[in-house]
Every structure is written in C-alpha cells, then in structure tokens.
C-alpha cells in the first residue's frame, strides 16, 4: 500500500508492531495504543522513533502526556464513511499542537484527500496506487475554502473583509 507523505510517495520508514513482539531499540515503530500506554516508560527510553496507532473511539486527550515523545500518530478510518478521526486530527493539531507526522490509515481514497489534508493529516496510507499518484492534483483541485481548519486557512468571512479592506485602500489612493 503506497504511503504519501507531504505530497510524495515514499517508502514507509516505520515498522508496525501490532502484537506483543519485541520492539527493536533503534528502529522507527508504530505500536497500538494499549501497548504504548502500558509501557510508556520503556518507550520513552528508546533510541528509535515511536509512533502510535490510535483507535477512533478513544479520546485523544489520553494521548497528551505522551505526545512530546511521539513522532507519529496514526488515526483510523475503518470505512471512509466513519469520520471520527477528522475530529481527532484537528484536536491533536489545533488544541494540543502536535507537530509530528499525522497519518491517515484504513479506507483512504482519493476523494477524501483534501478533507484529510485540511484536517491536519500530512501522511496517507492510500488504498489504490492510482489514487496515490494523483495526490498532488487532487489536493490542488480547490483553491478556496470557507472555513478555518488545521491547515491554517483563515475564515472566508475574514479574508473577504481583508480583501475589501485592501481594495478600498487602493480606491482611495486613486
């Protein structure tokens, strides 16, 4: 499954350890939430980067004490119709200022890219290769957005005012 990060298809540097298998010390790994929470101390001492796979039914505030030591949070879309992780993503980015990799996993299709991107995701495990290679085009399809989100867009109402402000300024100079 292709991984798109910051607009490019890359090899996944992370190893997924989803069972109780030992975690190599210097490799980048993704572990399930329970394992991270149970062995938080051990993970903090590792040399390699640590990421967590966080369920969409669990409050992301539980993750706050660990965020500083995490380089990646992977959120889950069991089907594209289940949009809970959009809220989790925005909360992680906007409220808890998480700056690491925020990865969308599960049923990820091209027509969600823009929503995901705007909600704060910067990495995507894409189901279809054709979708992955279309990523950049799809993201650029829209140039205007009405609402602020985790992508730093400002509110349309605000931008219009700024725009009108600068236009009337030009007018008054003429």
């Amino acid at each position, binding site marked *: 499954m292709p991984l798109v990060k910051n607009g490019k298809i890359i090899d996944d540097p992370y190893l997924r350890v989803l069972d109780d298998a030992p975690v190599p010390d210097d490799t980048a790994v993704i572990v399930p939430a329970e394992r991270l929470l149970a062995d938080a101390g051990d993970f903090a001492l590792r040399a390699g980067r640590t990421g967590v796979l966080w369920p969409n039914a669990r409050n992301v505030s539980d993750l706050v004490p660990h965020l500083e030591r995490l380089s990646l949070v992977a959120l889950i879309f069991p089907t594209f119709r289940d949009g809970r992780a959009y809220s989790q993503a925005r909360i992680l980015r906007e409220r808890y200022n998480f700056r690491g990799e925020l990865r969308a996993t599960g049923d990820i*299709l091209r027509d969600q890219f823009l929503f995901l991107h705007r909600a704060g995701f910067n990495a995507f495990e894409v189901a279809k290769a054709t979708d992955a290679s279309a990523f950049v085009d799809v993201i650029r399809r829209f140039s*205007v957005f009405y609402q602020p989100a985790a992508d730093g867009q400002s*509110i349309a109402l605000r931008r219009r005012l700024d725009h009108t402000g600068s236009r009337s300024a030009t007018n008054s100079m003429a």
Partner: protein
Amino acid sequence: MYLYDDFDRTLVDERIDEFRDQVARRLSGELTEEQFKPLRLMNGVYLQLHAYMLRIAIPYGTLSSEQMRMLAHIARRYDRNYGHFTTRQNLQFNWIKLEDLPDVMADLGRAGLHGMQTSGNCVRNITTDQWAGVAPDEIEDPRIWAEILRQHSTLHPEFSFLPRKFKIAITAASHDRAAVRVHDIGLRLHRNGAGETGFEVMVGGGLGRTPFIGKTIKAFLPKRDLLSYVEAILRVYNQYGRRDNIYKARIKILVHDLGAEAFAKEVDAEWQVIKDGALALDPAHAADITARFRYPEYERLDDNPEELRKARSSNRRFATWLDNSIANHKVSGYAIVTLSLKPEGGPPGDATAEQMESIAALAGRYSFGEIRVGHEQNLVLPHVAQRDLPTLWEKLETIGVATPNVGLVSDIIACPGLDYCSLANTRSIPIAQELTRRFRNLDVAHDLGRLHINISGCINACGHHHVGHIGILGVEKNGEEFFQITLGGRADEQAELGALLGPAVPYAEVADVIEDVVAAYVELRERPNELFIETVNRVGVEPFKERVYATR
C-alpha cells in the same frame, strides 16, 4: 438575494470540474457504482427506482428569476419537462442521465446553483422561513445567519462524514414557519432582557422512525458565538454519535441517550475551548454578508390601494384568492403572494418548465426578480405591490398556480413515495391527488379552515407526517400498502407529534377515512372557527376514532 462574489463562484466552478472528472471515471469503469456512490451523493445525485435523481440546493429557499429560468432550461433540456419542489426547499429532477450530469452541473453553476449539501452525511442545506426578510413578525432577516452557516458548513473538512445527515433550520419570527423544533439544530433569533439579539439553540429534534421535538440547550447564544457553538455541537456529535445502526445515528438519539443536560455539558466543555478562536464573529462579518443581500428599493405606497379595492369588490374569485394566498408584508403597499403548486389532481410540488419560466418572468416584473420556495412545497413571490395584485392574479390563473387553497385541506405535503423513491413502502402522490379531488370544493375547504395533511411513503418521514394536523404514513403489511393515520401533529412554535388514530387502513380506504375524520371534526368543533388542530387538542383522538372505526 445573496449575491455571489468571486470566492463563491470559484468554489462552485472547482466543484463542477471535480465532478466532471468523477463522472468520467465512473463512465470509463475506473470507478464502480459502489465507489461512485458517495461521490455522486455529495453532489446531490441519487439513484432512484427508474433513473438518477438530481437534487439542487436552494439555500434558504431564495431563488432569483435567472435561477428559476435556468431550472426551467434543465427541466426542458435534460429532464421530462418538470421539476419537483421538496419539503426542504430544494428542487429535484427525476429523470437525469448520468452522462448529462456534468453539463447539467455546469449549466446550473452559471446561475450559481449546485447540488452540494443536498445529500450525504454532512450538514445539509440550511432552511429558514420562506417569508424571511419580508414577514412583519420577524426581528431581523434570518437568511444572513443561514448564509453564514451555509458557507461555514460547505465542504467542511471535519464534518463531511458525520454519523448521519444533519439539518439546521433558523427562524427569526414569532410564528415559526421553519419548523425549527424538528431539526437536528433549531435556531430561534430573539431578543434577551438587555435588548440584544441572539439565538435560542435547540438540538435533537427530528422525524423519521423515532420522532423527537428538539430540546433547548442554550436559551441565549450571542451572535458572535454562533459558528463556534455549532461547531462544538457537531464535534461532540461526530465523535459520540452512534455509527453501528443507521436508525440510531441521528443526533436526536445521542441527545436522548445522554439526556439534554449532559449533552449540553459536553457541548459547553468543547465550546469553552474554541469560542474565542478563529470562529468568533465580529459585527463586521455579519455586516459584510448583509451587504451581499440585495433588498428591493420599495416605492412608498399605501396599503389597500384603489385598484385592489375595486377588483376585490367586483370579482368574487379574486377576493377568495386574495383572502387565501396573500400575506401581510412588512412594507406598506406590498404583499407576500403564495403560488399554490397543489392544483386539483396534481402531484404536490411539481412545476413544469413553462410554469417555471412564466414564474421567473412574473417575478421579474412584479417581485423584484425574487422567488421563494416554502417547505409546504409552494412558491412565493415575496415583494408584490398591492396595486399589481389583480393583474398578477390573472396571469397566475392562466398558468395554473392560483388555486386558492394555501394552508387548506387540499394544500397537501407529500413525499415522492413509490412513484420514484427506492426506499418507499407505499405510494404517496396518488393519495394526495385523490384527496385534492375529494376536497375540490373550495367553499367546503374554506369552511374547514387551516388544515395540514402530510403524507410519507415510509418511516423516513420525508413528507413530515408526524407534524401534519393529519399525518398519513405508508407501511407494508404482507406485501400490501397500508396507511397509519395520526392526528394533532404540528410543526410550528407549539410543535407536537401526532397521535395514532387506530389500526392501519388499506390503500383503497385512505381517502374515505380522511373524509370521515374531517366530517367528525365538523361535528365536533365547538364553533365554526375552531380550527381542526384546536378541536383535536381539546377532545383528543378518541371521538375521531369512534367515528372512523365504528363502521369499519
């Protein structure tokens, strides 16, 4: 009218391009119908029993003459020469071909129309009073806030995959014509003790399988906080609403399960964190949107001018129409005119391409180029000078939209039912048609007074049967069409769900039963002007039941 600027136009254009690409991928086979489904749904394209159906958003029910003309063009060019106005102030075309859809969208886009927010589990087209901006009993124009919410919710990155669809309605009048208590969020603009205007916020209303009247979770929300508060509600719902069972996924179930108080607490906790952020509105935002609404330059006219008085006294049919279809306007010398899309024997809410064109022209001539769509599936010309009413009436008569039955027994709300809808248990349009024939005598209808009949072809309740004074719900019994009748529902500020009359009746008997119910009302009413709904309130359903089932 709200005037699109470059920003709004760009977004619609980009959306059309995207959809053209999606249809191309479907036609080439790159997308299966299964994969295409969510994409078309996000543009208002449904697959019905016989064909694709396109639902077009008419934000807060306001249309320009130009837009109406475009709808006529679509009906003629791509459909079977008619369109259907729905209870959600939208328009549906029932016979559109898949390969035509991108062109249809492009044509619509030229008039600022589109299908966004008319389907899918997102925030749907925001609805409001069809008399917004002209009703004498409103404190301000609620469309300003509907537009602010429309923009905020359009292609929202967090709330496009909610547990279920989400409907918001706003009223700013003392009489609620927007049915705000039966919406996921209902907003009522009102003044607090200090004279400021703000919103009463209700959540968890809705019809369908488990109907609820919305509960007030905030008595007064300042305008600056509207977006942040709505976002807090949506965020709580997006995370905690049920996704395991489609019938329990609406916010009303979450509100009911948690209790309104606990739900309000959750919302408040979320809101406290975001209320002073990017979503806080200042008066300049509302002023900017208000400035984009074009209001007519009314003349200074007197009420009840001579032309009107003369015509009224010399023509009884005109007088009847006047008493029935005209409402008071907040500007003197003007009137609000309702155009009945409920002719005898016609499917409720249908308009032909010719009618749409004529209405567009008449609106241009007599209503400052503006038309409204009401949730009762009628149209409205909102700014007609009273002196023009006699001439306008004649023209409306010619095109068949001057039946003086607005608000009366034959002004029936009905969903598409089994004639179109793939979810239907039963037909509903033919029932409505038959009832308009039974109650064709307008003198009788006027004597009966205000009486709302609402018909749904299944429990999804698109015909809002729970809140009809008489509600008719189609159910299936051993492969046959049966109908449950309820009495006493209402959608206004005293919103109430109807009570069941008795056992369901077969298709062939529905019209007879409704006639019996109405006859019972005439016997039971205390005085000639006691309305049907008042009689039901006073005596309950029991006396009706006795009468109807005694002989069955």
